């Protein structure tokens, strides 16, 4: 299988102004996404999901690590050489409101993106735009509205239409469903699956909800405070999760507890029930467990993954 996107050892730390504290947004992230497949990326708010997505698009620079796109090493290229490739990777932004100009009309926004990489005639252009609108279930009447006047969910769907209009080979969808109600969520999930089938698109699907990620991913990566703590094919992560955090995500109603520890050791130790049950083994607070392969394609980072 061809790999479309691959990252190796991505690091991105943010330093506080005074330099005392660091936020580890990406801490040794290695991922790969094959052609026509979806990688789901889940994790709690603030764990670094968007940061990973933005590094992949080279909207921000990683501290170290490499990103390959179709064999090109993006981290070594400068913007001039990346620009022609940009058509191939697109992102559905989490905060659609800040990625659009509110004084622009919906029609012009879509027109701009359709014309970016194709030269359709007036009529074809209009048909294409109408078609896009119906795919994301928006009225074509809405095309004359200002972007600033659209509701949260309408703007999100417009952003999805914008990305689809470019026909990219790789789409990063950053929480594309978070503002939509269930029925529309289902439509968008079906739409993404459809597009993937038609155009053999690769997807990085980011969400905080493991249950949604599961619906359309082939492989799922679970992230916690900048680290990948588990990575496995979808069916495996559903049936046989190894990491305590993944197990917790499947059963979120059980209230978790919170113990303040030092910063060293396993990233998950503050909320880990296994650690608690085991009577706080030293190894968890001293050493970050490595991401190890327990069965084929199933990785987990926990000292007690096999128990």
């Amino acid at each position, binding site marked *: 299988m061809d790999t479309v996107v691959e990252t190796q050892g991505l690091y991105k730390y943010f330093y506080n102004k005074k330099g005392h504290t660091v936020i580890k947004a990406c801490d040794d992230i290695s991922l790969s996404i094959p052609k026509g497949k979806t990688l789901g990326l889940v994790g709690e708010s603030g764990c670094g999901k968007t940061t990973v997505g933005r590094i992949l698009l080279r909207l921000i620079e990683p501290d170290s690590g490499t990103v390959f796109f179709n064999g090109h090493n993006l981290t070594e290229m400068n913007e001039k050489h990346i620009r022609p490739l940009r058509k191939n990777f697109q992102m559905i932004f989490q905060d659609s409101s800040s990625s659009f100009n509110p004084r622009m009309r919906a029609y012009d926004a879509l027109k701009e993106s359709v014309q970016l990489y194709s030269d359709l005639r007036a009529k074809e252009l209009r048909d294409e735009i109408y078609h896009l609108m119906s795919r994301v279930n928006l009225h074509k*009447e809405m095309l004359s509205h200002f972007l600033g006047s659209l509701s949260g969910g309408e703007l999100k769907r417009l952003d999805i239409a914008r990305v689809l209009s470019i026909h990219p080979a790789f789409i990063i969808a950053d929480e594309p469903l978070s503002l939509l109600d269930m029925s529309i969520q289902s439509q968008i999930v079906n739409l993404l699956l459809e597009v993937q089938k038609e155009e053999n698109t690769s997807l990085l699907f980011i969400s905080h909800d493991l249950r949604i990620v599961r619906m359309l991913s082939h492989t799922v990566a679970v992230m916690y405070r900048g680290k990948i703590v588990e990575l496995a094919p979808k069916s495996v992560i559903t049936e046989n999760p190894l990491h305590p955090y993944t197990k917790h995500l499947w059963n979120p109603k059980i209230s978790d507890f919170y113990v303040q520890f030092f910063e060293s050791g396993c990233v998950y130790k503050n909320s880990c029930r296994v650690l608690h049950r085991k009577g706080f083994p030293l190894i968890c607070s001293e050493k970050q467990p490595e991401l190890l392969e327990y069965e084929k394609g199933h990785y987990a980072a926990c000292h007690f993954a096999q128990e």
Partner: protein
Amino acid sequence: MSLLAELNDLKVYFYDQRDKRFIRAVENVGFSINEGTVLGVVGESGCGKTVTALSMMGLLESEPGIIDGQFFFKPSEEDAELIKQSLSRGVRKQNDYKKDTLFNLFFGLDRYVSFEENPFTIIKDSEKWLRRNNRIMEHIRGKNISMIFQNPEQSLNPFIPVGGQLTRTIKRFNREANSYEIKEKAIKLLRSVRLYRPEIVMSMYAGSLSIGMAQRVTIAIALCSHPRLLIADEPTTGLDTTNIYKMIELLEVLMTEMNLTLMLISHNIRIVSTIASNILVMYAGTVVEIGSKNYVMKTKKGPKHPYTEALVSSVPSDSDIKRGKKLRVIPGTVPNNKRKMDCCPFLERCPYAEGKIRQKCESACPELARVASQHYIRCYLFYS
């Protein structure tokens, strides 16, 4: 339990200058909220939830458009005095008060804005009205009604660190507290909205927060003014499932601790139903069902608007998802909100609109009909 707020017949129309037509954002929306209860508002994307909330806050951008209706609210006693004073400067009308403690915050709207429906004409001076209204709303916003915006960037200042924004708001509402107490309080609030390492978050700027973090910071800011009514517009979208339930728990605790009343807007009826006492279901800008949670959520028996039924059953259960069941879609689309509503708004997607009843559905938009005490449905199926 006493009445805290009551919205009657809210109408919000925007004007599309290019098409020279009105956009019907909200029509015939009304409800009442008792002190200490939670009103959940659910409905499809674009159905008018945010517009309703913004009109209650007096934050709707006026031009070009129409807003009409009455919004009665019971402010705290001291603010009631202040409002009474500023109201008495204008012409005081009997129907701007209710039970002497509730004020119509849309005071005088009818004198500045009026419109005919057929054909559409508006006579208005909404600029003038807004200026007057703002004077009253200054006493209301923050202390009495506070809102968590759907879009967190809207309420965060990008140039002041989170800590600064929080402490400033806390200071405004607790004049006696010293700076140490204020800082402690700010950190405690940030921790209670489940932000990890709140001391660090205090020194961060809005631009360096993740979306979910920004959302929780806005919740903390909205809470530090101790409002009587908190309008939370999709407060949980950025959170993962664990944190959603934690956040709901937190809101529940705050409701008893701070005597808070909550209007919770969300697209997820399941989350809403864990906390709400009453649920308002909106569709295409209007209320299609309102009632206590037990009535609205009951799946099998009992009257239920066809849209609510579709909405409730489109939420898959955990086991459905785990088994990889395909998601249910409500077929069809919402009606175009530039056309006049001359039939039931749900007609196009309704599985029950058949035979004789369909003629009725096509004839006019049904009225909200009472089906049980405090349970209303807008559907011909339930006309007696």
